[in-house]
């Protein structure tokens, strides 16, 4: 009983945190206090009348930028996770069905890809195309599909070893139907939890790329870019260097809590290890 209240608390708190920022992102689609390029507020004014959090070094309203940033964060997170899910599940299922050297090769390939920092892959892809949100998302999604792929391979192998798969095979069910009917339904709880964690990591990775100047260009800047621009004036105008970081942390914690809560709800076997 005690366990179940704690569980729902995790999920609720996570949803509240992430929901708050999702709300900011949704509202920014229709309304923002100022236009993105409105510099009428004067440079580096502190929090106060007219500007909730003050302005940046060009006189742009910080709160407006934060709202845009929350939208970019969700676009980055959802986009990357979508790519990671599609590519990762495909690779993982293929590797699980492959036998012998093909399985070894695919696994070794995934291992090397995992050991390679997401950021590097992203830098290469951004260098090849241009610094846009799209190339950042593509890079992060591809790097994450290696992680998802390895997880899916292990999960699928475990399912394929079960007796009901042998039963389905002997009764003449085709492999595609087995994947759709038996494998995917059995792996999805663990998969969903992992994808939620990947969402948080993707948001962090996009912020890192933007910090390096490899993400979405201004004025639709991400929190990472805002932080980079505010770094030089950290001590004189701390709001700009703190607010985006705090929102970023809150969003990632929120999503991680949702992942923990989902794991407890969907995957009872893993319940006792809440790590």
């Amino acid at each position: 009983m005690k366990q179940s209240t704690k569980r729902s608390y995790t999920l609720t708190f996570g949803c509240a945190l992430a929901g708050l920022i999702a709300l900011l992102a949704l509202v920014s689609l229709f309304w923002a206090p100022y236009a993105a390029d409105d510099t009428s507020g004067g440079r580096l004014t502190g929090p106060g009348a007219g500007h909730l959090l003050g302005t940046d070094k060009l006189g742009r309203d910080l709160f407006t930028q934060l709202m845009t940033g929350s939208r970019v964060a969700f676009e980055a997170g959802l986009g990357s996770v979508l790519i990671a899910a599609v590519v990762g599940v495909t690779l993982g299922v293929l590797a699980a069905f492959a036998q012998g050297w093909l399985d070894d090769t695919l696994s070794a390939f995934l291992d090397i890809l995992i050991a390679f920092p997401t950021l590097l892959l992203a830098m290469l892809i951004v260098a090849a195309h241009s610094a846009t949100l799209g190339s950042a998302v593509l890079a992060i999604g591809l790097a994450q599909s290696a992680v998802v792929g390895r997880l899916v391979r292990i999960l699928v192998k475990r399912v394929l070893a079960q007796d009901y798969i042998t039963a389905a095979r002997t009764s003449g069910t085709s492999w595609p139907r087995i994947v759709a009917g038996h494998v995917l339904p059995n792996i999805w709880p663990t998969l969903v939890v992992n994808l939620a964690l990947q969402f948080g990591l993707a948001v962090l990775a996009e912020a890192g790329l933007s910090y390096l100047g490899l993400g979405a260009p201004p004025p639709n800047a991400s929190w990472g870019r805002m932080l980079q621009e505010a770094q030089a004036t950290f001590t004189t105008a701390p709001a700009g260097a703190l607010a985006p970081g705090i929102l970023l942390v809150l969003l990632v914690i929120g999503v991680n809590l949702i992942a923990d809560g989902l794991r407890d709800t969907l995957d009872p076997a893993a319940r006792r290890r809440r790590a």
Partner: protein
Amino acid sequence: MARYLLRRLAFLLVSLALASVVLFVLLRMLPGDPANALTSVGAGPEQIAAARHSIGSDKPLPEQFVHWIGQLASGDLGTSFVSSLPVAPEVGSRLNVTIPLTLTAFVLAVLIAVPVGFVAAHRRRTWYGALLNGVSQLGIAVPVFWLGMILIAVFALNAGWLPAGGFPPDGWSQPVEAVRSLALPVITIALVMSASLIRYVRSATLDVLDSDYLRTARALGSSFGQAMWRHGLRNASVPVISILGIELASTLLGAVVVESVYALPGLGSLLATGIAQHDYPVIQGVLFVSTLAVLVIGFAADFVQRIIDPRLRGRLSGGAR
């Protein structure tokens, strides 16, 4: 064991060869002509052709590849298109910053994460167990560059204890300055790294605490400490070591962000410049050296796991799969 070492070494060489082909092909797929970086804006076609010829990018790809592999075999990483300096010494001097930075941060992270993760698991029902777990949850959500910015603002700009960035021009011949300028970057990486390690240590410890063999050992009269030391440590360290290997490898190049925050002349920033300038030999050299490091670290992690856990010895590539 000798047989295993030989097979694993062969696997390493094959992986390295594959990786070098992939690297070479991937880089040639990047758009943008490196010859453009060499010539001034508005250069005529014959100037660009001359530039291409001088760096060898007018030759067919297979020929370029054979040339590169030949160089590698003799320990030569080629010559930068942009600075016309050999890449190998440059990579070497960058490693003088990146290796101490990464290794110190790694050791510090392990020293933090192992005891904290153990306590967080062993005392998970107490307030401080929950607190430690909460802090590590917070830690994995903090972007490394933001932590760096905060540490700079607090300890460098406000308190003035440590430099805000940069590395002494004479490097390690100014040991005090060098150590001082690496202190904050090391702490930044170590804190972020330990946050995720704590979760793995905690989860591995929880598995051990729930295990039948630990209960049996206790029932046979071992004290908790004895049982943990004789049975727990070995079992818990296998999955943790495989994570350690991955963390160490990814930090080696993942340090690029921290190097950028603290303006350090490390391997990551060399790569960043190389990519921005389409300087193939530099990119290739850095990525080749890093791939080698990644593979060697993976090999070492695998080897250590095998020494710890005899059950893995039947398999070629072990680890917690």
